[in-house]
């Protein structure tokens, strides 16, 4: 095992385009980083921001959302909804201290296996660069936070 930080990335793909792009990458034996765990949705429009927050709260270091190219959505225009949600979600996350580099939106058609693998690899490197997120709601962070109240004391400033 190397000491390199291996980010945990959750990827949401849509059934019709981006999941097929991943599938195509697989059948064509294109290699891509194993750091991404794909979850297939019927459509990027199904992407409730709750899913992204849950991923981060559960310990993910990055989240990638993929869908059909604008204009190509199998449910007409749901991917535009995903796009609008993504913009406001990203802005909200930034305020909560989650770097914008930890979340990415990618459009990939079923034929774009190479683009898909390339973008996944780039994203994994980008998140690796940012380092672990380790939100305290995951992995016992909360217990640590409240087990040591003396650490949290308001610091005394000499008068």
């Amino acid at each position, binding site marked *: 095992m190397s000491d390199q930080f291996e980010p945990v990335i959750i990827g949401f793909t849509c059934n019709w385009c981006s999941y097929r792009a991943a599938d195509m990458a697989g059948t064509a034996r294109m290699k891509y980083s194993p750091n991404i765990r794909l979850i297939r949705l019927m459509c990027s429009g199904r992407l*409730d921001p709750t899913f992204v927050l849950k991923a981060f709260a559960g310990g993910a270091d990055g989240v990638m959302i993929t869908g059909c190219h604008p204009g190509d959505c199998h449910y007409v225009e749901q991917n535009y909804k995903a796009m609008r949600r993504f*913009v406001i979600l990203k802005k909200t996350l930034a305020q909560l201290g989650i770097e914008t580099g930890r979340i990415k939106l990618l459009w990939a058609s079923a034929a774009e296996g190479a683009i898909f693998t390339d973008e996944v690899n780039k994203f994994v490197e980008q998140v690796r660069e940012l380092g672990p997120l380790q939100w305290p709601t995951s992995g016992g962070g909360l217990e640590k936070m409240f087990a040591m109240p003396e650490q949290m004391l308001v610091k005394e400033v000499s008068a």
Partner: protein
Amino acid sequence: MSGNGKPKFAMYWAASCGGCEIAVLNIHEKILDVDANFEVVFWPVAMDAKYKDVEAMEDGSILLTLFNGAIRNDENEHIAKLLRKKSKLLVAFGSCANEGCMPALANLSNIQEIVDTAFSTPSTDNPQNIRPNTKFSVPEGELHIPTLYPVVRTLDQVVPVDYYMPGCPPESHQIAAVIDLVIQVLQGKAELPPAGSVIGVGNSTVCDECTRKRNEKKIKKFERIQHIMIDPELCILEQGVLCSGPATRSGCSALCPKAGSPCIGCYGPAEGAEDYGSRLMTAVASVVDSNDPAEIEKIFEGIPDPAGQFYRFNLAGSLLRFSKPAWKG
């Protein structure tokens, strides 16, 4: 305690504003029913009782405790644990206890910043930059004041809660209805709702109770309410002013939109919404009238403080609970 045979009632405030207490007193003559049916054993805002009196009570001897306020410091946590032990029914009362409310907006900031803001602003007279000490020795012994925690928590993040009663504060008619119900249960005329229920509320959204007309109109620009004349008949959100009705639990009879002001979400997440902010982001994204990334960004510039808007009442109760600066220090 005298023990006049009546079931015991307690109410406590942790990190709160006092509004929840006022809301209970606002039930007018119904307060006499509380007195007639309960022995009030602990209620700091209304009567003199000491923590040691509560400590001396038998476990489970208080029938009903309405707990308002969030958990901000170790005193809040201590009393929450104490009242949990002493109470049969512990109700998270009001938005602060349910989801953090205003106190939990502090979860956007680092604790040191908060203390600095409180004790060293230009308008604060504190030339020596003194900070509170949590321990202080005096000839009589050592004094302690509560220690702030790095983040604000909801009541049920600290102890198990039997019922949830949201609202900032809960509407008085809802409080009266809940008190009536408990009295009926005592008289054997009704049954308690299943444990874990949200009580004194409706089970749809504020939009469902709102009488304003909706036309599925989309918007090109978010407006601040003070910059436009709100049409009295039409949906406020469709007029470009952010209204939290679509994500918020019903129960207040859409008080704010009826008065011409947007709902700001005080009744908390609608039934089934796991994360209030997510529900609201989804609702807001669907009224934006653009499919162009640059234009979408531009339109959302009209919401300069999305975390504050979407989690105004819910930050501690949200999936992420706090910002990174708050927990990273």
